[in-house]
């Protein structure tokens, strides 16, 4: 009832562990699957090892988090060495980031053997020269997606930034370049100041906002993308309850990623949401999840 196909991948259920959230190691990816995720996205992997920014890298707020981890990752070589010996019973989507289309293509080529699909991080709001600075520019997005498509046979998902006036512009650029799907949203650029310290809390000062507070914004992004694009859309942003998940599906998302809610609710959040969706489908007389995808776009 919950199984879906998205970006040419077959998933047991529509829930995917979001990039950068409790996904540093093969064991953690397996844990997410064991606790109910249908697929996982790895931490964003780049050319060189990066330790990320100094702490504080996170601020807890009443309705979510602001993070500026700074893309910590072991670099593609160490990642490849560790993952090439691992077997997974579920799709592993490898997130990659680079400073131009050549770096993205290089990473996709080197990591194709360990990836069931790639997600391109075109949208990290707090790493200088990476992510969002590329992702706000439709021509760059087109170039990067095209270069990656040429470098690998694996499905390619372009992850979009909400920090732009009209997200469909970059969505359309990704689609035109041959992306198999887009995922949205990454975090929203934000800041928090401690009034007694009289300064920004994060060592990087600005970071990205995620969690329940961003949900309505993310939902709007998905809704707009679903209206404008023909390729699959993966909804991300603040999904914490099964009701949130159903909203995103109805707005046109074929699959959903869960990030901050893993911290708020624990890994069990996957099972909670899956059970809720299934109960809803039964109670409302639907026989499969496909029947509600995009249902709210009509009329």
């Amino acid at each position: 009832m919950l199984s879906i196909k998205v970006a040419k991948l077959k998933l047991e259920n529509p829930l995917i562990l979001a990039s950068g959230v409790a996904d540093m190691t093969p064991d953690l990816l397996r844990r997410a699957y064991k606790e109910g995720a249908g697929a996982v996205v790895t931490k964003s992997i780049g050319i060189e090892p990066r330790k990320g920014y100094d702490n504080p890298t996170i601020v807890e707020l009443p309705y979510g988090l602001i993070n500026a981890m700074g893309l910590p990752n072991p670099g593609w070589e160490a990642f490849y060495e560790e993952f090439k010996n691992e077997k997974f019973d579920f799709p592993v989507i490898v997130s990659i980031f680079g400073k131009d289309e050549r770096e993205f293509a290089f990473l996709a080529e080197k990591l194709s053997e360990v990836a069931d699909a790639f997600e391109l991080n075109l949208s990290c709001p707090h790493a200088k020269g990476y992510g969002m600075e590329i992702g706000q520019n439709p021509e760059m997005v087109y170039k990067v997606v095209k270069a990656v498509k040429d470098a690998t046979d694996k499905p390619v998902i372009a992850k979009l930034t909400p920090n732009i006036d009209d997200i469909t512009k970059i969505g359309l650029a990704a689609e035109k370049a041959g992306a198999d799907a887009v995922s949205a949203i990454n975090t929203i650029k934000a800041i928090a100041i401690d009034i007694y310290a009289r300064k920004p809390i994060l060592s990087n000062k600005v970071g990205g906002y995620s969690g329940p507070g961003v949900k309505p914004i993310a939902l709007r992004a998905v809704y707009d993308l679903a209206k404008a694009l023909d390729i699959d859309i993966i909804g991300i942003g603040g999904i914490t309850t099964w009701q949130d998940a159903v909203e995103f599906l109805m707005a046109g998302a074929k699959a959903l990623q869960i990030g901050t809610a893993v911290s708020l609710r624990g890994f069990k959040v996957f099972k909670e949401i899956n059970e809720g969706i299934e109960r809803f489908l039964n109670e409302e007389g639907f026989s499969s999840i496909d029947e509600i995808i995009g249902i709210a776009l009509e009329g």
Partner: protein
Amino acid sequence: MLLRVELTEVWEEARNIKAFRFNRKLDFVPGQFIMVWLPDFGEKPFSLADEDLILVKRVGAFTSKMFELKEGDYIWIRGPYGKGFEPKGKNIGVIAGGIGIPPLYALTKHYGNHFERITLIYGARSKDEFALLDIENYVDEIILTTDDGSLGVKGFPTDVLAERKDEFDYVYTCGPEIMMAKVLEIMNFKNVQVSAERYMKCGIGVCGSCALGEYLVCRDGPVFYGEQLKNTELGKFKRLPDGRIARL
């Protein structure tokens, strides 16, 4: 949420170990930790020794900065975080190594009435490195070990545990990873709770930095049952802040 607290007492408890008491009593379970932020200098995890007390060993830049703080100065904290100890057993052995003492002090002070007899086996490199606070009030027997033989038994706490393990029906441990791995081996992973350590950034189970096997130390731990750690890398390797595997 960050909380600014004022230091009400600061004292040197042992060589290179200072105690910091602050003006806020936290509702905590022994074994839980807090994140301490010093604006401009970083944010790091420390176990609660008591509802308003941490013990800090000077090992690098952040802890050296902590050592400059005086009564009346502020620190910023968030937490308590993580899963603490669960009181089990009657005649327990408490195995501490070095700066592993704070959560075990909290255990004996706050959960003392759950146990019939508490034996503390505490090891340090030499005689001036023991941060005992007033733990003598909460335990029935104290055995100190030093690597250099300058006080108590010459050797490691695990040497004493290996000899006396049949006396204990349950064991609690915190200290250097190699020591804790040895405790697990001696206890055959049974009837033991371990307070583990990994590199922490967020402290709230979102960043994945503190991965240990399939667990997040900040969320699923820091206190684990021995059985949980059976097929993990504990005692074998850790990860750098960038996620690469590194030797202990």
